[in-house]
């Protein structure tokens, strides 16, 4: 008996049952694909999140948001009572605060000639260049004088520049933000998308005073960011700020804060939670898919082997050794599970790449996911394909043929 001939024969046998072979392959494919996809995207997302967090939230900043009990969301108008004076008073009272910047935002339609766009308009101070660590790539940042004089100057993001100016030079050109004329004096450094999937290049930065007076006509701010001198004492500083703001807002004991404070320590806690979701629960969900797919494949294999006990008996009758039978089913199982497993890896990675490209995540190839997927589908094949076939091969041929 030639092993090579027997292997070829086994592969031919699979080809005769294309549909069944396909279903078995799909069974192990879905699980491996899900696992590969989730783990590779999850790791990419984790990495992206950490870089973004570092990008927007250094270890020495404290964020104050208007409205209580919310983190990283937009302001709630009803609860917004935070003013520029609040922040200024806090900064004055605490020498630990090195630098601060207040921010008010709005979504606005922007026009230049026939070209229109919708962008997020951020009102910030001249200090935001340092506090938020984002400067201009072309032109100049506005200065303190511009903020004081409520000047109508704007720094536009790359997306806005592209929407309104295409290839033209935007510097010194006039644009209309909600029908108010502004002059573009700079183009913001590119940022990309942030954690929420928001395009941070579709932004316009104007002096906060100009935004509050000429565009939104409010006297509250949405958020502020404070840079502290000593990152080690950041929690203490945050507590101080809370005390001062509660006093200024005349909140009684037991009343909840009408603002929220976010420190890097808190961000790390949140990131930790998200990380657990990404690196534990999502793969767990994928593993469930793997198990379900495995069970489907196992059921089909088991049914197939059971239906072929007669065939096994016949092969034994015409001279097959039990080990020939084992080899045949091993080859059949290896081809289907490896085929399904490899297909799953390719599909999972391809889907991961697709999603990663759309979300600018940069998917990570994960050997551990691939190995786990292959191991599981191999195990399925072994338990449902090879073991019952071994058992049938050990039967007396007379019993197998019955």
């Amino acid at each position, binding site marked *: *008996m030639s092993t090579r*001939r*027997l292997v070829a*024969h086994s592969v031919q*046998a699979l080809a*005769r*049952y294309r549909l069944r072979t396909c279903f078995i392959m799909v069974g192990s494919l879905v699980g491996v694909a899900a696992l590969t996809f989730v783990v590779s995207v999850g790791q990419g997302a984790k990495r992206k999140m950490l870089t973004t967090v570092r990008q927007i939230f250094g270890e020495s900043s404290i964020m104050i948001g208007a409205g209580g009990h919310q983190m990283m969301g937009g302001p709630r108008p009803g609860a917004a009572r935070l003013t520029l004076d609040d922040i200024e008073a806090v900064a004055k009272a605490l020498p630990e605060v090195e630098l601060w910047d207040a921010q008010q935002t709005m979504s606005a339609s922007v026009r230049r000639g026939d070209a229109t766009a919708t962008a997020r308009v951020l009102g910030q101070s001249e200090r935001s260049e340092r506090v938020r660590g984002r400067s201009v790539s072309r032109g100049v940042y506005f200065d303190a004088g511009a903020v004081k004089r409520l000047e109508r100057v704007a720094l536009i993001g790359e997306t806005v520049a592209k929407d309104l100016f295409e290839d033209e030079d935007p510097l010194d050109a006039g644009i209309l933000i909600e029908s108010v004329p502004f002059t573009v004096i700079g183009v913001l450094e590119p940022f990309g998308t942030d954690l929420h999937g928001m395009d941070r290049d579709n932004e316009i930065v104007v002096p906060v005073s100009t935004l509050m007076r000429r565009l939104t006509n409010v006297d509250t701010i949405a958020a502020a960011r404070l840079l502290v001198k000593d990152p080690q004492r950041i929690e203490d500083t945050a507590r101080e700020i809370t005390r001062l703001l509660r006093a200024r807002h005349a909140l009684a004991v037991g009343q909840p804060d009408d603002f929220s404070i976010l420190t890097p320590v808190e961000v790390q806690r949140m990131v930790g939670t998200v990380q657990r979701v990404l690196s534990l629960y999502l793969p767990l969900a994928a593993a469930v898919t793997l198990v379900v797919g495995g069970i489907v494949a196992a059921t089909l294999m088991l049914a197939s082997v059971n239906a072929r006990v*007669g*065939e096994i*008996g*016949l*092969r*034994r*009758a*015409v*001279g*097959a*050794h*039990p080990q*020939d039978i084992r080899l045949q089913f091993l080859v059949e199982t290896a081809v289907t599970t490896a085929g399904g497993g490899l297909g799953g890896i390719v599909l999972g990675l391809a889907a991961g790449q697709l999603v990663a490209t759309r979300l600018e995540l940069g998917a990570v190839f994960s050997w551990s996911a691939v190995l786990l997927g292959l191991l599981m589908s191999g195990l399925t094949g072994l338990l449902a394909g090879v073991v019952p076939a071994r058992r049938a091969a050990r039967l*007396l*041929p*007379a*019993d197998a*043929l019955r």
Partner: protein
Amino acid sequence: MIELHAISKTYTRPSGDTVHALSDLSLRIDRGEFVAIVGASGSGKSTLMNLLGLLDRPTEGRYLFDGRDVASLDVANQARFRNRYVGFIFQVFHLLPRTSALENVELPLLYSDRASTTGLGRRALEAVGLADRLYHTPSELSGGQQQRVAIARALVNEPDLLLADEPTGNLDAQSASEVMDIFDALNRSGRTVVLVTHDLAVAARARRVVRLKGGRVVADARPTEPKDALEEVQ
């Protein structure tokens, strides 16, 4: 060629009862014989067939094939023995579905240690008159044709012994007669044929008829004329 000495086969049913399928059976079959084993169902004729082909092991007794004790061979050597010396034909054909006649016939060659197997399958199919059906799958063949494919498969390794268990049981009279013609021809060309049947018309084509009852030989006749043998055991 075949000598069975005091063979017994006992099964234990799942219910715990023991069944004596064969008790103390002795039988001798010489090279070139054409033997029909007849008997009512439950008489042990299929068990005898399985033991002759080493598809099953006797509980007691000795089975000598060409003087060699084959019942005590290990699993690998039993497989080799079946491959080289025995060709099986079953009532339900046992052909692999979706597989061409030629590939079905060549199946025993897959497990043989012959150096060259080229053309053997084709020749075996020609011998049973199916040269024009090489690439038909079982579902494209009639029952009679399927059984002829199975006979070709039994012949492909040129075994000394052909064992047929109710080979005509699933066939119409016409096909059955054709299949028996093939057995007849094979026997005339020197092959030893043992077939199990409960159909006396089929048994009448054999040259020796052995009748079993309750796991024992109750009649054994081998006169010159097959028809007389049948009458004798009846």
